[in-house]
């Protein structure tokens, strides 16, 4: 969706390096999410945020750090990248109602060598 921008779209890095993936939304909606998608699998939740300065772990949080100082931005940091973190990362934003729809960014493909 045009309201969600992920950057970079493609990244190659080496084991042990720090990498930050950025997610930006233009709507100022409360909930934002980071998912990872590995080959042949569905999406697994890494972290999510209910509002600025409120974050919580998802299903697979190990090795990742998030922050949310501004409502519009939700960066995901791999502090010391590992090969197992090679994946496609999707940011999502939830509509404003409690049962609101999820909208996804275009994804960031990360390769860790």
């Amino acid at each position: 969706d045009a309201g969600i921008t992920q950057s970079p779209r493609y990244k190659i890095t080496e084991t042990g390096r720090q990498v930050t993936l950025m997610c930006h939304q233009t709507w100022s909606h409360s909930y934002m999410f980071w998912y990872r998608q590995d080959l042949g699998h569905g999406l697994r939740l890494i972290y999510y945020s209910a509002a600025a300065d409120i974050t919580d772990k998802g299903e697979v949080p190990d090795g990742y750090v998030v922050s949310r100082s501004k409502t519009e931005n939700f960066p995901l940091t791999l502090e010391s990248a590992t090969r197992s973190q090679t994946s496609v990362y999707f940011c999502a934003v939830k509509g404003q109602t409690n049962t609101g729809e999820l909208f996804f960014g275009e994804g960031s493909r990360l390769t860790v060598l």
Partner: protein
Amino acid sequence: GIQVEQSPPDLILQEGANSTLRCNFSDSVNNLQWFHQNPWGQLINLFYIPSGTKQNGRLSATTVATERYSLLYISSSQTTDSGVYFCAVKENTNAGKSTFGDGTTLTVKP
């Protein structure tokens, strides 16, 4: 947490055929969505359907919340329908998180 199972895992169709994809979930939900992931990796919202039936062109979806399943119907399939179809559910007890199934990979042959 809630379990989401999609079937079949893979489906191959001839162009023009119809198909039904299923999503079973293990607990009460207040949100269910169907997504199509195209060959370029984009996740496209198809339906937001916590209950009832909706139709959009050749696609329709039905969710029977009391029986904990949802069906996605694709009629007169086209090669552009190829890709992976995911359902995602949000539990009644959880304020924000959605859980995805592993998807159904659809290949439509010309």
